[in-house]
Every structure is written in C-alpha cells, then in structure tokens.
C-alpha cells in the first residue's frame, strides 16, 4: 500500500463524522461514515430516491431556501454553520448555485475551531475561483493562520494558498511562507513548497528572488519536500532549460536513488518505487537533455537503469517505460538506448491489452519523426489499428500517419482520414482532422484534380466548423498561383468545372463556407472556362440566392460573384432580373449591391476597369487613407477637434463627469507612449495624425466586410507541394475519389518494405491486401531517408511562416493600440514630454554610458558579456572564465577552469580565432558590451555585441568565415521569441562571406512581453558540401531594455496619479549605501533609472521600457529599509523592475 494511504490516515483525524451528534467515534460505518439520521444523510437519501430531474430540482430549491434562512440567521452556531456548509457543497456539486453561502464559508474559515475551520476552507476552495472578489476577504485569515502555533492551522492555511490565492495579495503572505521553508516539520515544508509553486504559476516574477531556496528544498532530507520542489523545477525548466543545466547531475542522482529503491518503503506503489516521482524526473531530464549532447551524456546510464528496472508487468511500469521512451527520443540520441526504447515500443504496440496498445501508438507517433524506420517495422500493426473497432485507437493511428505523410503516400492517408471523418460526429474531432487534411493536401497534392476534390470533401464534410484559415488559404492559393501561368489556369479551370458540376445537383445542400468559396471562384475565374455560357452560371447563382437556407453573408459573396461575372458579359437577362428583384429587398446590403450592380451595368467601361480579370491579388486599397489628408487638414484648420476613437471619447466623458476617477485605468498606454509614437512619425503634427487614426478606423471597417484577408496568409502548397512526380502521373488516370488501395498500388512503384521478404507465399488474401495497403502507406519512408528529411525541413519552414504571421498581426494590433491611445487624457504631458526628450537626448546618452560603466555587477554570470568595453581590462579577471563557460558548459562545475589565469585564456582564444571582430566606429561611440562568442563550427564563428541605443537594443552579430574559401548564401535567422520583438525582419542573408573575413548584421530588438530575463535563439545555415546549421542563443535581460526617462517633478506628479498598477516592497539596505542618495545612485547606475528629485528621505525616479512604457518609482528610507513603490501603466513592469532592484541592492 502506498505511503499516501498511511499518511492520509494519520493526517485525517476522522475529521467530520466523529464530532457530529449521533455518530460516535468509530461508529457503525467506520471513521468517516455519516449516520443516517443527520440532515445531510436524509437529504442525500431523499435525492437518491427521486426519479425525475424535475423533482430533484424542487427538492434542492427547498433545501437551499431553508439553508439560506439558517446561514443568515444571527443565532446560527458555528457548528450548525459547518453542517450547512457541507450541505451547500453537496448542492453545488449537483449543479445548483448557492452563492449566498460563499461569504459564510469565509467567515467559518475565519472564526471556527479546527474542524469548523477545515470545512470553511474546504468550502472556500470549492466555491470560489481565482478571480473571485470575495477571495480578498480570506487573506487576513490566511495570514493569521500562517502565524499560528497550531500546526494543523498552519497546514490548512498553506493548503488553501496552494489551491487558490489572489495574485495581487502574494506579497502579504510571501515572507511568512518563505519562513515555513525552514520549519522543522516536513509536512509544513512540503506544503510551503507547494504554495510557492502556486505563486510561481500565477506570478513568476514575485518569487524570483527565492530561487536559492528552491534549491534547498530540492536537497531537503525529506523526500516529500524534494518531490514537491520538482514541480517548480519542471515548470522553470520548461520555460528556460539552459538556466538549469547545472542541476542535471542532481536530478540524475535523485532518479538513481529512486529507481534503486532508496526512498522510504511507503513511497512504493505496488512495489514500484515512487512511480509518479520517476515520471516527473524523466520529464525534467528530457527537457534538460534536448539537443544537448553533453547534458544527455550524463543521463544515459540512469535511463538504461530505469528501462531495466521497469520490466515487471504492471500498468504503472508501463507508464514509466512510456516516459522513458519519450525522454530517450527527446535527448541527444544514443544508439543502444534507442534500440531498447524501440523494442519497448514494439512490445506496447503488439500487446493485446488495449490500453497498452494506445500507449504504444502514442509513443510511436512521438518517435516516428526522429526515426521513420520504426514505422516500417510496425507497419502491419498500424494497418490493423487503422481498422480497429475502437475509434480512439483509429484516431491515434491517423495521427501517426499524419506525421509520416509525404508526397508519395498522401493519397492513401488522406483517403483514410476522410473515411474516418465520415463516421465521426464529434465536432472537435472534425475540426481537428479537417485542418490536417487541408494541410496535407496543400503540401503534398500530386495533381490538380486530386487537390480540388480533396478540398471539396474538406469543405463539405467540415461544414461551417472549419477553421476560417482553410478557405482563406485555399482561395489565396488559387489567386496567387505559382510560377507556371498555365498550371495556374488549369487548376482554376478545374475548380470552376468541379463547382459547376456540384451546383448541378438541385437538392444538394452545401455548407455556407463552401458556397462562399464556390461563388468566389466562379466570380473570379468562370471566364476561363470557354465552353460554358455565363448565363448558365448566373442562373445557378441566382437560384442559390433565392434559397432560404443561404445566410445573408453568403448572399453577399454570391452577389459579388454575379457582379464580377456581369462585368465580362455584354448583357444579361438574369442580371437585369436580379437587379429588379433585389432593388426592393428588405436586406439593406442586398439592396445596396443591387444598386451598385445596376449603375455599373450602365457603364460597362467603368465596370471593366473596376473589376479587371484576375485582379484579386492587386492591392488597390490605400489603407492609410492618405487621400483624405487634405480633407482632415482642412477640418483641423477650421478648428475641428482631432478624431478620437470611440473608447477614448467615452473615457473622457467619464472623467469629466466625476471629480475623482475611482475606476482603475486598466491597461491603456499613457500619453508618453503615444506622444513618442506621434513624434516618431515623419510628417509632423495634425496632418499625419489625422490620417493615421482615420486610416486605422478604416482598416477595422475593412476587416468587417467579407473581403478576403490576404495579408500574411501562408502560401505553402505552391512550391513545396506541387511537384508533379512521375509515379503519380501514372496514378492520375484513376478517378481520384474512387482511388482504392489496389489500383493505386498498380500505379505506384513502391519500395519493397523490409518485412515483406519471404512470407508472401504463405499469406492469405486478406493479409495480402493489408500488405498492399502497407506498401502504399509506408512508401518513401526509411530507406530513402531523403524524403523524410525533406518532410522535416518542410515543417520547419512552415512553422516559421505561421509564426511570423501571428507576429505580424500582433504587432499591427499593437500599433493600432498605440494609435488609439494617442492623445489620451493626460493632455499637458503630451505637450511637454516630447520636448523634454529632445532636450536631453544627448544627456541620456552620456548617462547611459555612465550607468553601464558600473553595471558589471548587476548582470548575472551568464550575462557576463555585457561588461562594457571600457571595463574590459579591469574586469577581465572575473569575467573571462565566465564567458568561457558559455563556450564550454561541460566544465561548468569544475573549479580548475575558473582559476585558470585569465591572460592565458585570452591568448588561447586569440590564437584560435584570428578573426576578432570589432564594432564600426559610429557604434563604438555608443554604450556597448564586449564582443563575445556565441557559437562556432569548423567553418564559421559567431560573435555578439550588444549596443544599448536610445530607442532599442541593437544586437550586432558578427559572422566570421574561418575557412579558406568564400561561403555563399549564409542565412542568419532569429526564431520568434515570446518575449522579444525583432524590428524589421527576423532573417538576414549574407550573399557571400569571403575567406577569413568577418561580416556583421544588426538587429534592433524590443521587449514585447515583460520578463526579467529571456532567451532569443536563432540559427545560421550555410551551404558547404552539405546544408549545415549552427544554432545559438542570446540571453537578454530586462535591464537591456530599460532607459532613463527625463522629466520634471511636476510631470512626475501628474503621471504618477494617472497610473494604476502599483507594487510596493521594502528592501533592506546594506551598510555601504545606508543613505538615500547612495542607494538611489546605485539604482541609477545599474538600472539606468533617472533620478527626478530627492526631497528629504524620499526620492523619485523614472525610467521607460523601450519603446516607451514609463515606470515611476518612489523611494523612502526608514530605519535601514528602503520602501520602493512602483507605478506603471503596464502591470508586469513593476514586478520585473522590483526584482532587478532587489538584485542590485543585494549585490552591492
């Protein structure tokens, strides 16, 4: 029996039942059973006896009414209240809201004795959610209980904190919980770690300063505390694996001990030592070892051991094995382990136990991307699973097939998916699968007909639940076409023909989205088909318009199509009839379309001009509406107010109504943000401002109409997928929809699969069929690894494209945010700030340099390269070993390396790399870091230098060619990072780098989402004999993006009042800086804050996060403490800065 049982039983003092009247300790039913006479008992009994839902509802409503009366009566004792709470919990569980009791639950937790408190806390945790307003009332109780001398109370408080706690109140309990980490009882320590884990999840910035304590918890003598700390580590490593590589050894040791059965026996579950703990550790190791040969090497032994130990046949060992396999395939590969893991997967997949089979398929799906050969080994099993009676297994198998699809097997796999789709009813499954089919079809389609047919199936099966991207991408593909004009037209023609055929069927009902696609294609390209009279098409569209099932949105699409077709034809009765019919339509949009059509028909020349053939890709809309500038300027000249967006007008109205605005301002960007946005533009003042905002509003209006949004939609199919292959040309003759496995096989020259060798003779008919299917499915896998490699590269590029698209939209949204908030309600600042900024631009620069002069200490070890050039000599002794560490993390722990004389190191590195890059002259003048090496290979070396310019962080990347021949087409690509935004493009190409030469590229970076430290990674690839890729990562700190912000004390005051997010914290000052000015100058120098004013024992500072999010800081000293009070329009910024301040103050 597991420890869980023992521990729980010891913790549970038979909590409730024993003290209820009528139930003696150890009463009839055992410790927890309720007597049949209790109120709750009778309630449950009567509910169970009921037969209909209606009766139940009536009974519960009665119960709730009586409960409501009881809980609000002042005479109700706490004991009775406790009982009421339990009944309320029961009612809520059945789905009847009992919000009237919430406040009483909190009261009970506050006032009751131990047992009552317990129920109170339980009720709170069940009733409330994270953002519930009543939760704030609990904070005081929690604080009180945390300070209690009674262990049980402390435990309860910690438990509730680890379940739900309001984010903004964390500072109130954090110190108390930190203390509990040193508590003598392990249960308290464990719960404290759990509470901190919760904090880490909801507000990572606030617990960043106690990372050392997590390490202590990891080394705790009690295994439970250690186990609890693993959750925090798993989470932290997920976010940033490179920061915890040094702990790999510890995790490996722990796993070794667990696997070796060194933990107390009560951690065992069915004689397997701490299985869930093992799984947790395996996951952590997988994350740490990913793409890192050195770290992976450390864990090979223990993984081998885990595989060996888990050979008992029990579900839980399967779970461990599954995790092992995943880890083995995640980390840097080692052939022996891979072999064993593959064997393990084989055992799973072949198992008659259905759950195990599922697990095996899941593992296979994961593994198959690394090793397609495995699919070949298990192809027969996969085929069997495809026809498995359990749809879940089928679906998992399709998922697997999706991963191994290539240009040669796409037809069969897509067919299988469509078959499944036809049976499936669950909406979510349909959306998911339809998306996958569309993706595969775009990527690998062998020919036009097949592609169009497949997409038709996607649209008709997927119906209106398909993701809007699918029709958009499809239409974009048709519109933009690819290199070959003739091919384009063929594809379009085929589409038109197939749609006409579909519309031929009178009664067929197609989903709206499909109809929209059809009508767009018909409108654009029907003129390509010469043998069909436009009248016929118009008739069809017209009959569609009259159907009642067609939504008005689809009608717009159809009308647009009619208009386009009408522009190519001379004169049409149908069009005239349409105009007549819809000129009186009650639908305003339809009426407008009809009128437009009417007027256009009267002026054919204009119409043709307006609707040129194949004009969908020509960008005719001037989104900035610059042609209105004159109008706007005129209006402004007459004294009209500049345009303000709706929400802003409302805000202003609100602020005028009240003398004091008690509403929080939310996340609006304040004046300084927008002001710089305005000044940053090329044409000054009102004119450009007017056109920008109006352009913005026009853009949103533009989006709402049904026009296709063509920007940033990925275009994949064209180049990669559409490569007509010889084998498929043969298969082309078959009607694509009726492709059967057999006929396909006839047309395709499959690689003979490995398993097929000599068994063929003895196979039954059915088996032969399966074999055939297998050979069509697994074609192109394994033996010709080139194909699968290509497939991989495909996904990589595709991912990249998608991401960049997201980013584009994000940044454009942001931009519009900025514009929207322009000229917000802090009028006076708007005028003053820009002037200020101009005035002291030069000043900032000098200050910046000064500040960074002293910044050597604040940066963490792995940021060592930030040391400014000027410090190079003096700081060399400390710094060099560190920067070497980043080169060779293998020696991260060895002290020998660190004490190596720095002179030597320098010589060494100098002799190794003759090509030491240096900054250009104009950059050399700015504040900048040392040039450090990022990574190198035989041919290339990458160096980085950070330059802190006024408006961004400039990353200067040097690429030096170490070879003796020139390198062509070297591509430098940064990956999209969650926290950072690279201005301009993320990629850079060096057309040629001469032998023994250095080229450099510059990228400007902003911090997009606030974090104290983040990683920007990227890669360089170049063509030598083969395509080579070199990866690197750059650590960026919040401080890199902080710049001082000059302002006057009055401005500070105004801005201060307008900001809503604040964070307060007291920091102990060290003896070296016990005076306020000393402390402030530390902050000024190290964090680049600007000191606005110092008055007595109070000081005010200001800074901004690039591009221009302000953050204000108010400091006050009292009795050796420095009280910091941050305010900013951005809620995460104060947290981040606070963390940096704490670090700076601790270090100095």
């Amino acid at each position, binding site marked *: 029996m597991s420890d869980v049982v023992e521990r729980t039983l010891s913790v549970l003092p038979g909590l409730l039942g024993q003290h209820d009247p009528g139930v003696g300790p150890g009463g009839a039913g055992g410790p*927890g059973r309720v007597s049949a006479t209790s109120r709750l*008992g009778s309630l449950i009994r009567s509910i169970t006896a009921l037969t209909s839902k209606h009766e139940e509802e009536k009974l519960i409503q009665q119960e709730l009414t009586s409960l409501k009366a009881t809980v609000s009566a002042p005479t109700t004792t706490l004991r009775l209240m406790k009982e009421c709470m339990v009944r309320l919990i029961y009612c809520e569980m059945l789905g009847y809201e009992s919000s009237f009791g919430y406040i009483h639950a909190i009261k009970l937790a506050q006032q009751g004795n131990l047992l009552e408190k317990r129920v109170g806390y339980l009720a709170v945790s069940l009733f409330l959610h*994270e953002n519930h307003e009543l939760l704030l009332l609990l904070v005081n109780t929690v604080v009180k209980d945390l300070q209690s001398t009674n262990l049980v109370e402390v435990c309860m408080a910690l438990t509730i904190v680890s379940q739900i706690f309001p984010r903004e109140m964390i500072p109130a309990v954090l110190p108390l919980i930190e203390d509990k980490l040193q508590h003598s009882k392990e249960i308290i320590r464990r719960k404290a770690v759990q509470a901190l884990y919760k904090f880490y999840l909801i507000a990572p910035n606030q617990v960043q300063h106690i990372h050392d304590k997590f390490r202590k918890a990891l080394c705790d003598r009690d295994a439970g505390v250690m186990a609890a700390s693993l959750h925090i580590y798993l989470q932290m490593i997920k976010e940033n694996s490179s920061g915890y590589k040094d702990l790999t050894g510890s995790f490996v040791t722990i796993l070794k001990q667990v696997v070796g059965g060194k933990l107390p026996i009560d951690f065992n579950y069915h004689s397997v030592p701490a299985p869930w703990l093992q799984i947790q550790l395996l996951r952590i190791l997988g994350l740490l070892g990913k793409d890192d040969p050195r770290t992976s090497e450390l864990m090979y032994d223990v993984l081998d051991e885990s595989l060996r130990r888990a050979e008992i046949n029990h*579900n*839980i060992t399967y779970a461990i094995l599954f995790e092992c396999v995943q880890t083995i395939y995640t980390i840097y590969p080692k052939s022996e382990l891979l072999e064993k893991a593959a064997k393990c997967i084989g055992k799973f997949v072949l198992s008659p136990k*259905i*759950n*195990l089979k*599922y697990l095996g398929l899941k593992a296979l799906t994961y593994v198959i991307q690394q090793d397609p050969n495995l699919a070949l080994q298990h192809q027969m099993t996969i085929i069997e699973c495809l026809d498995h009676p359990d749809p879940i297994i089928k679906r998992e198998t399709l998922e697997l097939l999706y991963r191994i699809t290539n240009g040669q097997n796409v037809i069969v796999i897509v067919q299988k998916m469509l078959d499944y789709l036809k049976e499936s009813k669950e909406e979510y499954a349909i959306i998911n699968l339809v998306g996958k089919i569309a993706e595969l079809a775009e990527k690998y389609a062998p020919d036009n007909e097949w592609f169009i047919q497949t997409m038709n199936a996607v649209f008709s099966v997927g119906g209106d639940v398909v993701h809007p991207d699918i029709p958009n991408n499809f239409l974009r593909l048709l519109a933009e076409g690819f290199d070959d004009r003739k091919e384009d037209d063929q594809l379009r023609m085929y589409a038109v023909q197939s749609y006409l055929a579909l519309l031929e069927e009178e009664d067929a009902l197609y989903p709206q989205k499909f109809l929209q696609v059809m009508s767009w294609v018909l409108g654009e390209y029907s003129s390509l088909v010469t043998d069909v009279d436009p009248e016929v098409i118009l008739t069809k569209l017209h009959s569609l318009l009259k159907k009642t099932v067609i939504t008005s949105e689809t009608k717009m699409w159809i009308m647009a199509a009619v208009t386009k077709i009408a522009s190519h034809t001379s004169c049409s009765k149908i069009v005239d009839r349409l105009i007549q019919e819809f000129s009186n339509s009650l639908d305003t949009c339809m009426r407008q379309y009809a009128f437009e059509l009417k007027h256009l028909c009267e002026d054919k020349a204009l119409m043709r001009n307006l609707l040129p053939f194949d004009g969908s890709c020509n960008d005719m809309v001037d989104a900035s509406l610059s042609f209105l500038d004159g109008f706007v300027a005129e209006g402004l000249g007459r004294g009209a107010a500049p345009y303000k967006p709706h929400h802003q007008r409302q805000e202003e109205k609100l602020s005028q109504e009240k003398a004091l605005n008690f509403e929080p301002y939310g996340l609006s960007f304040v004046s300084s943000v927008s002001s710089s946005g305005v000044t940053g533009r090329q044409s000054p003042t009102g004119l450009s401002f007017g056109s920008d905002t109006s352009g913005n509003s026009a853009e949103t209006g533009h989006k709402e109409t049904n026009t296709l949004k063509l920007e940033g939609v990925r275009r994949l199919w064209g180049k990669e997928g559409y490569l007509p292959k010889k084998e498929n040309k043969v298969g082309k003759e078959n009607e694509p929809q009726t492709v059967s496995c057999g006929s396909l096989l006839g047309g395709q020259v499959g690689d003979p699969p490995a398993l097929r060798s000599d068994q063929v003779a003895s196979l039954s008919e059915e088996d032969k069929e399966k074999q055939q299917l297998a050979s069509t499915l697994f074609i192109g896998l394994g033996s010709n690894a080139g194909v699968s490699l290509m497939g991989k590269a495909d996904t990589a590029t595709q991912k990249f494209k998608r991401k960049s698209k997201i980013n584009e939209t994000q940044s454009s949204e942001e931009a519009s945010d900025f514009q929207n908030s322009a000229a917000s309600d802090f009028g006076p600042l708007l005028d003053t700030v820009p002037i200020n900024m101009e005035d002291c631009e030069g000043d900032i620069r000098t200050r910046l340099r000064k500040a960074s002069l002293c910044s050597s200490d604040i940066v963490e070890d792995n940021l060592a390269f930030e040391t400014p050039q000027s410090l190079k000599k003096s700081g060399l002794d400390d710094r060099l070993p560190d920067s070497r560490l980043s080169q060779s993390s293998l020696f991260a722990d060895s002290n020998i390396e660190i004490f190596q004389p720095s002179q030597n190191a320098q010589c060494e590195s100098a002799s190794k790399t003759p090509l030491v890059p240096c900054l250009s002259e104009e950059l050399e003048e700015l504040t900048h870091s040392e040039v450090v090496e990022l990574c190198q290979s035989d041919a290339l070396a990458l160096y980085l230098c950070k330059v802190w310019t006024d408006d961004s962080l400039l990353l200067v990347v040097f690429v030096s060619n170490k070879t003796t021949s020139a390198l062509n087409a070297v591509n430098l690509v940064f990956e999209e990072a969650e926290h950072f935004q690279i201005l301009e493009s993320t990629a850079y190409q060096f057309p040629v780098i001469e032998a023994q030469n250095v080229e450099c590229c510059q990228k400007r970076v902003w911090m997009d989402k606030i974090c104290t430290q983040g990683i920007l990674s990227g890669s360089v690839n170049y063509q030598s004999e083969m395509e080579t890729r070199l990866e690197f990562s750059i650590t960026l700190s919040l401080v890199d993006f902080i710049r001082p912000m000059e302002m006057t004390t009055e401005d500070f005051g105004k801005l201060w009042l307008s900001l809503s997010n604040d964070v307060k914290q007291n920091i102990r000052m060290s003896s070296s800086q016990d005076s306020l000015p000393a402390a402030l100058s530390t902050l000024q120098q190290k964090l680049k804050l600007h000191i606005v004013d110092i008055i007595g024992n109070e000081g005010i500072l200001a800074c901004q996060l690039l591009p221009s999010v302000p953050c204000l800081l108010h400091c006050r000293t009292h009795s050796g403490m420095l009280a910091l009070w941050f305010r900013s329009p951005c809620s995460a910024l104060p947290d981040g800065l606070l963390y940096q301040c704490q670090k700076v103050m601790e270090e100095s």
Partner: protein
Amino acid sequence: MIKFFLMVNKQGQTRLSRYYEHVEINKRTMLEAEIIKNCLSRSKDQCSFIEYKDFKLVYRQYAALFVVVGINETENEMAVYELIHNFVEVLDKYFSRVSELDVSFSVSEIHLSVSFWCTFQFMLSSWH
C-alpha cells in the same frame, strides 16, 4: 495537468466532483452528463482513454461507479489511470469496504469529498 476529477455513477448522478480549472456551475452539469454518456458508451474491450474536445478523459469503472479524470495533452494517460486506482485503494482502506459504499448508501460521498480532498491533495502534488 489534471483538469478535473469526477465520480459519477451509472445513473449519471455525480458523487464527487473537483475542478482544478474554473468551470461555470451550470456548465459543469452539462459537462458531467456528456462525460458519463461517453464513458457508458464504451465497452470493456475498448481502451480507457477517450479524446473529448480538446482534452482527454481517463476513466476506470468500479462496480456501478465511474471515476473519471480530465487531463490535457501533456499528461501520461497510463500514469493517471493508475493514480485513480491508487485513490480508490486509499478510500478502500479508509472506509474499510469502499465497494459497498455507492451501492448501499451513497451517504458518505460528501464526507469523502472532504477526506478525499486532503488525501488527494498529496497525491496530486505530483500532478497539479
């Protein structure tokens, strides 16, 4: 990550529910009804994991009582499957003979929810 933990009997009556991600009360009833429908539709020889919406259900049947856990993609189904059993073992020990509990008198469930909760908390520590 575990999203919720349910105990529902064959008649569709919820015996215990605990959500680790906030779900509106009125949506809970619907969700529970659909989940039990899903579980009941499966036969013994089908696997104990169901893909449901964007998450997965892992269920185990004990007599007339289903224990269902909702998990997300990253979770290891088999480990959760065993976790359920572990939990039932705990109940079994605590109530001496848990198998009769739901059949005879479904009274204790609510108390279960209390005891379960502190019990489960500990196990969950390795999950949530």
